[in-house]
């Protein structure tokens, strides 16, 4: 089946070479980071996690692309998703690989990372995160690959996969919950110490993951004429819309709690985001772009006559992805460290190294996604589903 990835057009190979080139250039920067240490990043004693961990948290959410198709298809018999579900599962695989990549490049001593398995520590949330991410990766590979293989051989889906599929639904919830628990239970980090953090992770994941999936599926359709189906896109964009409404609502809950209670610790970071604090406000622009993009995306996505227009839908989804990315992939992680435990403000901005190394990981994820989708679409075409 994998040989289908070796048979492609010139555009396909140009794209593959482009991704390999980005990975190659990025890895030069990573080798320098390995030699010099994390001093090449913008991180500091006060802001000790930055762009890498923020991308990790965002891409855990992107991995939700699978469950938002698997759950309606297998629990509610939403047959429209039958064709598209493989794309969602393979995208989850790529997203989890991206997550793992960002954790590895963030480590000060990456060659020791297996210490997490050698000295298993059940009181650390990072231990559970390792388990749930690895598990989710394996579940999606096994389920998607075996289902596709069965389709290719024109046999029914293997029965032994059924329990794994149900498990993968619960497991998907666990990856967002545990990743939220990484930061939600830390004393003294006001932005993170909120009981709705896991709910926010779920809401944000369930809108951003499928949103990216829809856009990528429409791009793939342009190049391969594999149509995931009008109805599938329509229903999925509805799911995205409701999840985004929940996501924005939960964010507004945070604003209310902080400003109505008037407790300085809760207010400070939000004020820093939107207005700046003590004369410092490096993220003010980003915060307002997030707010604007978030609101505008809902204005486009909520009325069904806008949403069912493909051009408007695309615009709405792009705005949604921008808003959720700024929220989780930029502000949320850095915000936990501002102000620092002494109440002082140290600002953070990623360096060129962080951007290039991140590009390397993005390209790796895209390469995996391209290859897996190429195989999947190749099989679908062969069996006459495309």
């Amino acid at each position: 089946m994998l040989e289908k990835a070796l048979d492609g057009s010139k555009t396909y190979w140009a794209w593959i070479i482009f991704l390999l080139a980005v990975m190659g250039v990025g890895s030069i920067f990573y080798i320098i980071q390995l030699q010099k240490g994390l001093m090449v990043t913008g991180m500091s004693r006060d802001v000790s996690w930055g762009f890498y961990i923020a991308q990790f948290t965002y891409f855990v959410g992107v991995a939700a692309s699978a469950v938002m198709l698997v759950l309606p298809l297998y629990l509610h018999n939403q047959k429209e998703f039958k064709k598209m579900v493989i794309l969602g599962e393979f995208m989850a695989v790529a997203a989890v690989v991206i997550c793992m990549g960002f954790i590895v490049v963030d480590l000060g001593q990456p060659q020791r990372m297996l210490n997490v398995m050698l000295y298993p520590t059940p009181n650390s949330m990072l231990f559970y995160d390792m388990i749930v991410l690895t598990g989710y990766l394996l579940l999606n590979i096994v389920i998607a690959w075996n289902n596709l293989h069965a389709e290719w051989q024109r046999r029914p889906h293997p029965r032994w996969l059924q329990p794994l599929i149900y498990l993968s639904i619960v497991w998907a919830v666990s990856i967002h919950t545990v990743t939220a628990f990484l930061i939600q239970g830390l004393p003294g980090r006001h932005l993170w110490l909120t009981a709705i953090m896991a709910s926010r992770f779920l809401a944000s994941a369930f809108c951003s993951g499928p949103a990216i999936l829809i856009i990528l599926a429409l791009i793939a359709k342009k190049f391969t004429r594999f149509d995931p189906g009008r109805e599938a896109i329509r229903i999925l964009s509805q799911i995205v819309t409701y999840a985004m409404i929940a996501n924005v609502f939960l964010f507004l809950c945070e604003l209310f709690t902080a400003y109505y209670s008037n407790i300085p610790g809760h207010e400070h970071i939000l004020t820093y985001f939107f207005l700046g604090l003590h004369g410092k406000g490096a993220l003010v622009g980003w915060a307002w772009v997030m707010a604007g993009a978030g609101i505008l995306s809902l204005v486009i996505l909520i009325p069904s006559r806008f949403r069912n227009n493909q051009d408007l839908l695309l615009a709405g989804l792009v705005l949604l992805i921008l808003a959720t990315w700024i929220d989780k992939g930029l502000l949320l992680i850095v915000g936990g460290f501002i102000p620092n435990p002494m109440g002082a403000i140290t600002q953070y901005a990623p360096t060129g190294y962080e951007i290039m190394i991140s590009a390397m990981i993005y390209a790796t994820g895209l390469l995996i996604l391209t290859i897996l989708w190429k195989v999947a679409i190749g099989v679908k075409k062969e069996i006459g589903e495309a």
Partner: protein
Amino acid sequence: MGSNRRQFLRIAGVTTLLGLGGGITLSASSYQPEEHSAREKEARLHAGRWGMVIDTRKFQTEEDFHRVIEACHSIHNVPRDEAKAKQEIKWIWADHFEHVFPGKENPFLAERVEQNEFLLLCNHCKNPPCVRVCPTQATYKREDGIVQMDFHRCIGCRYCMAGCPFGSRSFNFCDPGPYVKDKNPDFPVRMRGVVEKCLFCYERLEEGKQPACVEASNGGLIFGDLDDPDSHIRQVLREKYTIRRKVDLGTEPSVFYIV
């Protein structure tokens, strides 16, 4: 043919995994902690829970602080690089009242409190969040209450820095070697990519000595066993009103301040 190859790959994969697993178990069981000599055991200072009282009245001049900080940083090979202030490493340092005790400041603070600085170091909490979050037990709590670090096990994930609500931890963003003046050969110089902090001079307690900062403090720092009601530190705590940093977080710091 196809299914044969698949079966072979499956068997090969499972065998490899088993082999890796076996290797890990073997190497873990061959690890034996180093034995201490009998002489060292005799001289060693013991406690149920080590703690410290900082008598802030005895830290008035810049020299009072400098002496204590230097005593610690010089023997522990703490690197000094003025150019990289944001990524600096510090085990013990000083800051203003509103930074040391955020939430306890008020607009009409006594002049002495408002203008003076206060010492900061790891609190060696009874419920340390850094230990709770560490995924490799590179940070762990010893039986005598010291929150200890294994620099060789730390993977540099910096989860402990996010977990510590006191900002007591520093990360080696670069190789500290070139920035250590007059290396002390009796204490390890760290490598890049690991976290470090004050360790209550566990190495000096082994030799029957008080922590370096305490020794250099001219009585400004009182160090002792919080579990022993007859210890000097408990006597001081009985007689003087003391405060701790951020007690509402439930970490139970072992460092007390007489203000």
